[in-house]
């Protein structure tokens, strides 16, 4: 290292809030170090004299910590676990625990020797936006050469590539008042609201509450800041109506009092036990107080990015909070009064201190050397700061220092207030943006977040904000006074960028310099949004929190405008980056969507049926028997079983809607194209339902159980949509009708019993046997071994078929019993694969055909739109484009050679036409091997298809390399007269 042995940061006695009685070991890039409970990785590394913690994004410049908080742009590290790692962790936030392993990132081969730093040498050519102007020739080189090189060089940390199997959680919380930030203003607000009885959440990003009371340690109420904070926190902890949430970052403000917040639950623990790593909270608050404080900002001057250059507030925080003196010879460079106290504190802790105040008229009365009207114009030290050059009216001086503490003033932390598009206003006296009232409804800024940089003012303002919130909440404030504290005057003269040779960094995280911004302006990217996008200013992990205002000021200067006219970019959630795993908690594996199981699920699984997803449901694909090699063997057997004896299939996933009332018949006439008022009690009818736009929404059967009582079935996929639709039609268009609807899908288990032996099977278990008079499309109640059941004589297979419904609690038993009895007839259960073959053989449509773009006309059901009545979708279905010879119509397809598979998704062409877009005349929707007909079959849509029966068309599936001739036929292949299901 280039730093002399008696230089660099060091732990000092008598300072800090760390627990020195608990030493901890941790490693950084494989080297072991010691630290204390209460340290962050950054404070512990500094205490060990380590200043170099990272490499910059673009130029791979050596970097150390700039800040002591979550806004850190430089010290991003990777936390290593066995088999897993977390990139881009702020060393300033990660708390130390024993055995913590941390590695630097974006360097190769090592942090101190990074060969990628060659980019820094090429920097003159890599100005803002250079990549838009080159890498264009030859064309192929972009993807093959340039882009891969850029991609490899870019990026920061690396994901492990392994599944993140660690636990994460999400939770909801509700409160009267959310206080964001537990500094002086936040603590006062929480105390006032807590004493008044409000239900309060106090959320603080830091692991320890107190904010600047911990880092600056002003005297409050006659006591050191941390002590006063502890007293308040102790009182808050006793209140049942207060929830203290440390390590919780409020990440976003959303509509109607909803806030997102990320709690770091287990990230600071060596052993988390059952705790999640993080918990993402949705907090709903009636009122909120933004007491998030303020962030100090740096000044851009040449080579202002070396390890050892940090914010003055960070130097003070490392001293007071963690007992680390950031250097032995520290220069403080400031444009405001606030940094003076810092300089004094650093000196008191044993550092040799000098103050460089850019203001010519600043006071020179200090116990250390003060350079007035001076600016830092250069620095040296390759891997750590060794010296600085300062320039004033007398000329330039070089000073040997190992730390430069910089203060360019303060920016209120107003980001959350801007999340709903509100724009802050420029306060010229503070040289900062401050929030306007009501930028987020119900949220009020207080304290430093409102531009009050004085502790006394913050305490008073927290109290004020709480009282206003309490008044809104209708609560009476308790008597409470803000404690006494010393005034801290704050005066500032703006200084954004120091001119001079060499690069002056604005956005350290994205390597954006002052020159990049002026270049953008010169190229006429004068809008702040253009400048941001062209230079990438503010788009790095720190989201521009350290640099946006300065970059804006540089742009304003370069374009000859004032800062308010130049505007600001928009702050968007999240305030601090949030892991995908936390916001996506619960989504892993089967957790992504609810799982719905039929009552027969266990029995099907016991029969080794592969269960496949059907919407949210799981249904058996087929029921394999020993000796069956493939699913096709089982499927062919099950089809033959239904055609030859009897099969049992759980059809409970179909939607069931119970419709009752004197106007039930009228209602069905309105929502279906065909007529249901004429349906006799005890009968079932197939119904076709359109969307109001005239396309087919769904189909199914509806049974008339009584004069004023119908039971509708829907397809599995559309059950929810149909229920919503019926509720809409009923409430919006039939408000004065006497009809009520309710979904009973989950109340009934329903089984298809299909095949020539279906009646025989049922008769083995019915209390009163069925006779031939229970007609096709009949329905009625019956008793099944003492249980009230419903029977429907309907068929989706084309065979003699029934569906029997029992209350869901009997479903599992009934399914087992039906299967066992079926087996005695040479039958058994059948799954979705066989169901699909059976329905294709019969030309019944499913959502493969009624896929949302088809009309009743297309599927040959135009005549089902009854003439004498209105119905949903009827008017729109009459549009000229929804019918006619140009439409693709449902047809059956039989391959010229029966053994050649029909390919679902293949396109159809006239036999002589080439297989190109303008000749495509249709496509195959469903295909199967029909064991019944000994041929492959297909259903599909073909232009003017019904008129083309008998024509040979060419089916082409480029993707599967399949091509053949098919005969266009009627879609009902099996038993077209329907004698079997009626018989």
């Amino acid at each position: 290292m280039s730093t002399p042995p008696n230089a660099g940061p060091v732990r000092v006695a008598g300072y800090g809030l760390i627990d020195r009685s608990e030493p901890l070991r941790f490693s950084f890039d494989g080297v072991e170090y010691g630290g204390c409970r209460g340290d962050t990785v950054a404070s512990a590394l500094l205490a060990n004299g380590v200043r170099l913690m990272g490499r910059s994004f673009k130029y791979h410049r050596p970097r150390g910590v700039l800040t002591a908080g979550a806004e850190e742009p430089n010290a991003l590290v990777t936390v290593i676990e066995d088999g897993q790692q977390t990139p881009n962790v702020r060393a300033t936030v990660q708390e130390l625990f024993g055995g913590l392993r941390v590695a630097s990132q974006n360097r190769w081969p090592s942090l101190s020797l990074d060969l990628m730093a060659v980019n820094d040498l090429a920097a003159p050519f890599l100005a803002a936006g250079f990549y838009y102007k080159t890498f264009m020739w030859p064309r192929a080189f972009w993807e093959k050469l340039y882009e891969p090189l850029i991609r490899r060089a870019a990026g920061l940390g690396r994901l492990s590539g392994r599944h993140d199997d660690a636990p994460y959680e999400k939770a909801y919380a509700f409160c009267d008042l959310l206080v964001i930030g537990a500094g002086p203003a936040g603590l006062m607000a929480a105390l006032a609201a807590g004493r008044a009885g409000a239900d309060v959440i106090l959320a603080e990003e830091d692991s320890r509450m107190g904010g600047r009371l911990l880092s600056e340690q002003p005297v409050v109420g006659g006591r050191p800041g941390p002590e006063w904070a502890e007293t308040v926190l102790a009182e808050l902890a006793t209140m049942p109506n207060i929830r203290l949430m440390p390590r919780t970052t409020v990440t976003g403000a959303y509509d109607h009092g909803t806030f997102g917040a990320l709690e770091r639950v287990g990230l600071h623990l060596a052993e988390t036990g059952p705790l999640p790593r993080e918990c993402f909270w949705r907090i709903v608050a009636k009122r909120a107080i933004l007491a998030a404080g303020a962030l100090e900002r740096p000044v851009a001057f040449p080579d202002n990015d070396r390890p050892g250059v940090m914010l003055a507030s960070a130097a003070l925080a490392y001293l007071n909070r963690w007992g680390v003196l950031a250097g032995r010879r520290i220069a403080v460079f400031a444009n405001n009064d606030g940094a003076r106290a810092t300089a004094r504190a650093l000196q008191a802790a044993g550092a040799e201190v000098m103050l460089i105040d850019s203001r010519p008229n600043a006071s020179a009365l200090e116990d250390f050397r003060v350079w007035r009207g001076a600016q830092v114009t250069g620095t040296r030290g390759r891997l750590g700061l060794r010296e600085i050059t300062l320039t004033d009216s007398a000329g330039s001086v070089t000073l040997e220092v190992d730390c430069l503490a910089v203060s360019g003033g303060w920016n209120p932390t107003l980001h959350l207030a801007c999340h709903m598009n509100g724009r802050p206003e420029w306060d010229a006296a503070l040289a900062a943006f401050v929030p306007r009232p009501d930028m987020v409804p119900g949220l009020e800024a207080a304290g430093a977040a409102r531009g009050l940089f004085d502790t006394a003012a913050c305490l008073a303002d927290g109290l004020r904000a709480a009282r206003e919130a309490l008044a809104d909440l209708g609560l009476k404030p308790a008597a409470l006074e803000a404690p006494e504290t010393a005034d801290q005057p704050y005066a500032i003269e703006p200084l954004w960028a120091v001119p001079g040779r060499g690069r002056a960094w604005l956005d350290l995280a994205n390597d954006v310099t002052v020159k990049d911004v002026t270049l953008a302006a010169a190229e006429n990217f004068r809008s702040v949004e253009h400048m941001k996008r062209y230079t990438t200013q503010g788009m790095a992990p720190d989201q521009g929190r350290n640099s946006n205002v300065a970059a804006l000021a540089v742009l304003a200067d370069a374009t000859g405008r004032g800062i308010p006219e130049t505007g600001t970019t928009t702050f968007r959630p999240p305030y601090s980056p949030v892991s995908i795993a936390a916001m996506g908690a619960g989504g892993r594996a089967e957790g992504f969507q609810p799982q719905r199981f039929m009552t027969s699920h266990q029995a099907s699984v016991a029969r080794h049926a592969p269960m496949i997803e059907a919407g949210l449901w799981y249904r058996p694909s087929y029921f394999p028997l020993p000796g069956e090699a493939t699913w096709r063997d089982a499927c062919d057997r099950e089809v033959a079983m239904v055609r030859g004896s009897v099969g049992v299939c759980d059809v409970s996933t179909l939607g069931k809607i119970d419709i009752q009332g004197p106007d039930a018949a009228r209602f069905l006439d309105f929502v279906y194209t065909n007529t249901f008022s004429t349906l006799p009690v005890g009968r079932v009818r197939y119904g076709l339902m359109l969307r109001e736009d005239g396309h087919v929404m769904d189909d199914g059967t509806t049974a008339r159980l009584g004069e004023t009582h119908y039971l509708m079935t829907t397809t599995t996929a559309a059950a929810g949509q149909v229920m919503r639709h019926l509720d809409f039609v009923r409430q919006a268009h039939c408000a004065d009708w006497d009809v009520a609807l309710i979904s009973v899908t989950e109340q009934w288990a329903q089984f298809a019993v299909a095949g020539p032996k279906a009646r025989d099977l049922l008769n083995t278990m019915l209390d009163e046997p069925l006779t031939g008079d229970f007609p096709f499309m009949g329905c009625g109640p019956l008793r099944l071994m003492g249980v009230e059941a419903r029977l429907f004589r309907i068929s989706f297979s084309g065979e003699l078929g029934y569906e029997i419904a029992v209350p869901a609690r009997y479903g599992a038993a009934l399914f087992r019993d039906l299967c066992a009895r079926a087996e005695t007839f040479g039958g058994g259960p059948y799954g979705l694969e066989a169901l699909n073959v059976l329905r294709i053989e019969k030309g019944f449509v499913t959502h493969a055909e009624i896929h949302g773009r088809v009309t009743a006309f297309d599927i040959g059901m135009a005549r089902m739109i009854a003439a004498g009545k209105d119905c949903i979708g009827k008017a729109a279905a009459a549009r000229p484009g929804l019918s006619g010879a140009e439409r693709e119509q449902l047809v059956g397809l039989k391959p010229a050679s029966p053994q050649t598979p029909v390919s679902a998704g293949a396109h159809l062409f006239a036999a002589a036409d080439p297989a190109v877009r303008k000749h495509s005349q249709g496509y195959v929707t469903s295909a199967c091997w029909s064991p019944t007909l000994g041929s492959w079959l297909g259903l599909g849509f073909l232009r003017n298809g019904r008129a083309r029966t008998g024509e040979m068309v060419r089916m082409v599936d480029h993707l599967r390399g399949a091509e053949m001739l098919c005969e266009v036929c009627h879609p009902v292949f099996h038993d077209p007269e329907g004698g079997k299901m009626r018989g």
Partner: protein
Amino acid sequence: MRYSGWRVIAEGLRGQRGWAPVWRDPAPKAEYDTVIIGGGGHGLSTAWYLAKNHGLTDVAVLEKGYLGGGNVGRNTTIVRANYFLPGNSEFYSHSLKLWEGLEAELNYNVMHSQRGLINLFHSDGQRDAFVRRGNAMINQGDDAVLLDREGVREMLPYLDYGQTRFPIHGGLLHPRGGTARHDAVAWGYARAADRRGVDLVQNCEVTGIDIMNGRVTGVQTTRGAIRARRVGIITAGRSGQVAAMAGMRLPVESHILQAFVTEGLKPCIDHVISFGMGHFYISQSDKGGLVFGGDLDFYASYAQRGNLPMVEHVMEAGMTLMPMIGRAKVLRSWGGIMDMTPDGSPIIDRTPVEGLFIDCGWNYGGFKAVPASGWCMAHLMATGESHDYARRFRLDRFATGHLLDEEGTGSQHNLH
């Protein structure tokens, strides 16, 4: 000024002092032959093709904010030609061909990167629908490859193949699909149009459309009245408000679509991946951020910001599909105003007002269409006739029922 590697080196050697403004900042003239309302991707490409293909340069693009500030600057940058309905196929196919020559055409590196797009499927039914789509793409002369589960695993080994909720059955690979740098597209078109003499007028909001005897005569703006013989409305999510100035109600609702980007990471996702069951799609930018998005928030909105339910849904989908991204941190989320048409397809057409044209209804897929939209809109405005590639993008197709419904969710609003 022509851009090239040599120029970049030369400017590097002399301190970047020689770069000229990328475009002029002209004050609007009192009269133009053609006025384009909207300086987004589509408006700027229209201006460029008016100049390049039709020799029309007496053109102004009026932008109420800054150029490229709308959806072209806030999308997930995906470029693809994987549509399957006639009317869409040929249009997006043409657009992709234009993308493939865009750097040379504009002398601007828009970083078009054909890294391959994979649409995953999770059931036989979805597979068949994708086969139909893939075959349509090949019929059109584009490319598509059907991958089985192992084929997907070979390309995307990091997906969760043990995931049981919606197991990955396979995917449809569109090798020529990919991404481009969104801002660069707007800037490239703007610079090229400016160089041909088109006036790009920023901070100029149109407040009225002047119509006399059924014919457009110009526009009123915050920077004064501008006469024009032809006016094109190309204002995406704001189309409804601008069309209302001409007395029109459009078949458009404006919705919010959110997108997300993570902190920079070393390369880990080399393709564009679309997970339809989760309404989730993702790619990795050249800077290393994972760029991803999901479905609409599903309520009409002009707020350009969304809410948590869809944010969380998208993250959950990401975790179920590729749990390796769990430790990546979302850096920024944003929202765009989507001009949703009932059938999900766009409109490039004349209006009932003579000389007034409209290009809108890009739903959530306008970015890839930027080149062909400008190409076809320029053709329409210059010749008065619809371009063959856009002949089905008619304003009256909802009334006539000649719909272009790729998703099959209807010709009613908000079902897709």
